[in-house]
């Protein structure tokens, strides 16, 4: 990413853990959640969404859950190429997290699963439609668990308790 201030702290020397974005897409490529932690303009976002869909949907169970994005594959604007996409498929939905190439793959892979389990509990057997009709609540769940591109809270009990409390508020 070329100009955002935040990229200044993403120099290779700094072991800054940072999520660039979280995407939930269905198999047809419809976005069910896009949460951006770096500044992209609208065209860049659209391009990223399309390219993530293209690289992720062609992979099967024999593939890893990681896609290291090589130069020119994705946006030129992100040509420093120090990022990767960690994804997991749940039925027809792909949950994708874009992180630094040095970040811990398995920690984020389980971070996705932890998030999905919270959604599942919160929406009582979550399905794609829940995410569509309650999109504004999904953002709240994300903010409880991930903030500023970092993992904020990992305890499902704590997150659900907080969500339940918020749910009871008018």
């Amino acid at each position, binding site marked *: 990413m*070329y100009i955002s201030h935040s990229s*200044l702290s993403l*120099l290779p020397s700094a072991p*800054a853990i940072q999520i660039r974005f979280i995407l939930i897409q269905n198999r047809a490529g419809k976005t069910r959640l896009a949460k951006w932690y770096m500044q992209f303009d609208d065209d860049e976002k659209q391009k990223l969404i399309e390219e993530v869909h293209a690289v992720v949907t062609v992979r099967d169970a024999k593939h890893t859950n990681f896609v290291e994005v090589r130069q020119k594959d994705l946006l030129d604007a992100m040509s420093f190429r120090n990022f990767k996409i960690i994804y997991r498929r749940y039925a027809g939905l792909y949950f994708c997290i874009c992180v630094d190439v040095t970040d811990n793959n398995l*920690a984020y892979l389980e971070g996705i699963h932890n998030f999905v389990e919270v959604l599942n*509990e919160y929406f009582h057997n979550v399905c794609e439609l829940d995410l569509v*009709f309650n999109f504004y609540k999904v953002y709240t769940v994300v903010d409880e668990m991930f903030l500023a591109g970092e993992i904020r809270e990992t305890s499902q009990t704590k997150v659900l308790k907080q969500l339940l409390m918020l749910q009871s508020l008018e």
Partner: protein
Amino acid sequence: MPAVSKGDGMRGLAVFISDIRNCKSKEAEIKRINKELANIRSKFKGDKALDGYSKKKYVCKLLFIFLLGHDIDFGHMEAVNLLSSNKYTEKQIGYLFISVLVNSNSELIRLINNAIKNDLSSRNPTFMCLALHCIANVGSREMAEAFAGEIPRILVAGDTMDSVKQSAALCLLRLYKASPDLVLMGEWTSRVVHLLNDQHMGVVTAAISLITCLSSKNPDEFKTCVSLAVSRLSRIVSSASTDLQDYTYYFVPAPWLSCKLLRLLQCYPPPEDGAVKGRLVECLETILNKAQEPPKSKKVQHSNAKNAILFEAISLIIHYDSEPNLLVRACNQLGQFLQHRETNLRYLALESMCTLASSEFSHEAVKTHIETVINALKTERDVSVRQRAADLLYAMCDRSNAKQIVAEMLSYLETADYSIREEMVLKVAILAEKYAVDYSWYVDTILNLIRIAGDYVSEEVWYRVIQIVINRDDVQGYAAKTVFEALQAPACHENMVKVGGYILGEFGNLIAGDPRSSPLVQFNLLHSKFHLCSVPTRALLLSAYIKFINLFPETKATIQEVLRSDSQIRNSDVELQQRAVEYLKLSSIASTDVLATVLEEMPPFPERESSILAKLKKKKGPGAVTVELEDGKERGELNGGGDRGGDAAIAASNASTPSPSADLLGLRSTAPVSGTTPSAGSLLVDVFSEAGPSATSAGVNDDGFLSSAPPTVASEDPAPPLPESDELLNKFVCKNNGVLFENQLLQIGIKSEYRQNLGRMYLFYGNKTSVQFVSFNTTVSCPGELQSQLNVQTKTVEPLVEGGAQVQQVINIECLTDFIDAPLLNIKFRYGGALQNISLKLPVTINKFFQPTEMAAADFFQRWKQLSQPQQEAQKIFKASHGMDTEVLKAKLLGLGTALLENVDPNPENYVCAGVIQTKAQQVGCLLRLEPNAQAQMYRLTLRSSKDTVSQRVCDLLAEQF
């Protein structure tokens, strides 16, 4: 158990979403959306005050429409109103809208910040969190200015709720990343570090991200975190799987926190305090031990969480690189994973082992896995896993296993994915060169490479084999014999013809004694390939032929015959024709002595860093190349001769060192390009005989950057602006941010903001290579008149830019009076010894100092009439060069800086705008009218202002935008 029903709370929203989902076509969807937008607009504009619920519902609908990908240009005010509601659900929607659709409208920012301020001081933890999340999501500089002082206080205050602390820590992290200058930790440092001791694991989880970021920037100030992190880690690692309750994930205690702790420790060297270090080593051993224990669950979540910690621990062990015992244990553990049934684990083990291979303690241990890795290269289904296997083979290669590894990589190449072939070729070439004990093996390997993957053999690779053959006389005879044999194949790759032509031209005499490879046989063999080759290769072959005339006088008649044939001497390609003419002439008029001097054997090449290695580094990016080609001994061996690589080109007599024969032949006047272009990027163009324009550009293109740099690359004076700099300038007339310039080495991004007659521009210089730029220097100058029109100030940047790093430069601009030219930005630096010198125009244009002016139709027409003198008007009629989409046009006109006036022009197709240009000397009012003609795909643009130069300039600038 919490569960929510579909769209609960807002029925209207759920109905709307259902409607959209039921739309059969895109058109239907747009129609439904437009209807809804009209409805919402009328509600917002209506006389009846909306209650909080309705406002929330409509704002939420707008948000949904925006997320579907449609533009939203109203509703911001209503969203801001929601922020001051005292109902959570209304506030939440307000904040969400603001976070997703950040608007830099300064008036709104003030209101938003006000609302945030109120919520932060509300002592209501729910509201505080909402406000903090909004700051963390937006992270703008204005917010940093407003809240960077307040948030640390909230973070460390004794009475702050845990959840608020979590949000405050990460909010602060975001502000620090965005505006490090505004976040001053000073007095808070020690209290922030002590959050590592907090009872609430969630607070530690959040705070540690902040601490890690701050530590990596100021390691000394935060070094007390090391012992705290170690004891925290130790408590987690030694706890039973159920101790941590809420934070136990599939029987693994606090996996994410453990990873974060281990990562924080990677900001520091091993602890000096013996007790701390002992405790840490114990932790790492425990983690390694646990990997051997039987799993507590069969679920993949369990093993993933456990292994996440294990891999992070191994990263720390590798980072320390000081505990041989741990390194070897790590290596053995990874060795087990190499055969694991989980693809993820095999992939990660290969990746992690790659770094272990470069440690002296574990290199040997890594090597024991060679068979498994080779097997992975052959059998893995996922190309990225095979890629990692190839990386690891490359990293574990040394003299003892080079032949095996190179052979395996060569055989893999035959079936390798196209996407990784070029990289594989580079790796094989590097290993073959680096570990060659006998150079006949090296020559065989490279020729094999060309045979197997000729298309992927870049010029660097075949240049390099020629360099080495020329520099080592013990391999020349073998090379000649081998290429001669390789050329016998009925179909051989063009790169083989190039190498063959070059080597036989130089050393064909070494095999000429054998009647099976007599001079004439050699010539006929080469010439049989001639007609199938591209122009540059033919040019090379012609040079080989003239060399033959010198080596083997008996071939002279045959070769002269060939040169004299119409297909050569009248070739439509000017380079081939010129060579044929000149070589023919040279061979007929020069005496044997002159001929022998001109066509003398090439002198040894000066040894430089292998260009192949440089290329691989470029492909793989920073840090990816672990094997360095810096073996001094080998360099000595290779470096057979003096530093006189540049003076022996045969035909391309260098213009700077004129030789009598060159003058004689009139070469200098006919081939001015030869030899005059510095060939910093490629190794051979300067010495190589194919020095015509085609060859020069071929050599240079490979390094890309030279082709975009002006021919004065080697000069210390600022280069003239790039030819495309006007075009680059035009790109920024209607926008303030983006990439200004990019080549293979450097990317320059721009962010700028303007207020009144002042501007501030942030330039971001990104080093795209893995090699540092030295003597990096940038200057901004105002040529000629501009000096008195603009006041531009800037600070110098650091002279070193590390590979992969980005440096920032701030430029302050004051507009004194209106102006036309743009300031020049000159960037100079050395990359691998070669001076780079680039000049660009800074996108500072007069329209940046526009203040939008809203006015009613009557006012507009009155002023329009007032500006009726002919010189006050500038007009252009021009063809549309882009689509004539309304929204795009509007965005551009707004980007210009003027106010777009609705309902002014009687023709709704037209656009009128008004603005005032603010300069120190005066204000210049400007009116604009743009009349599109969709049928003719034309525009008429009219500008009127109180100053003729301004009208003209704005008109010129804007006419380039549509």
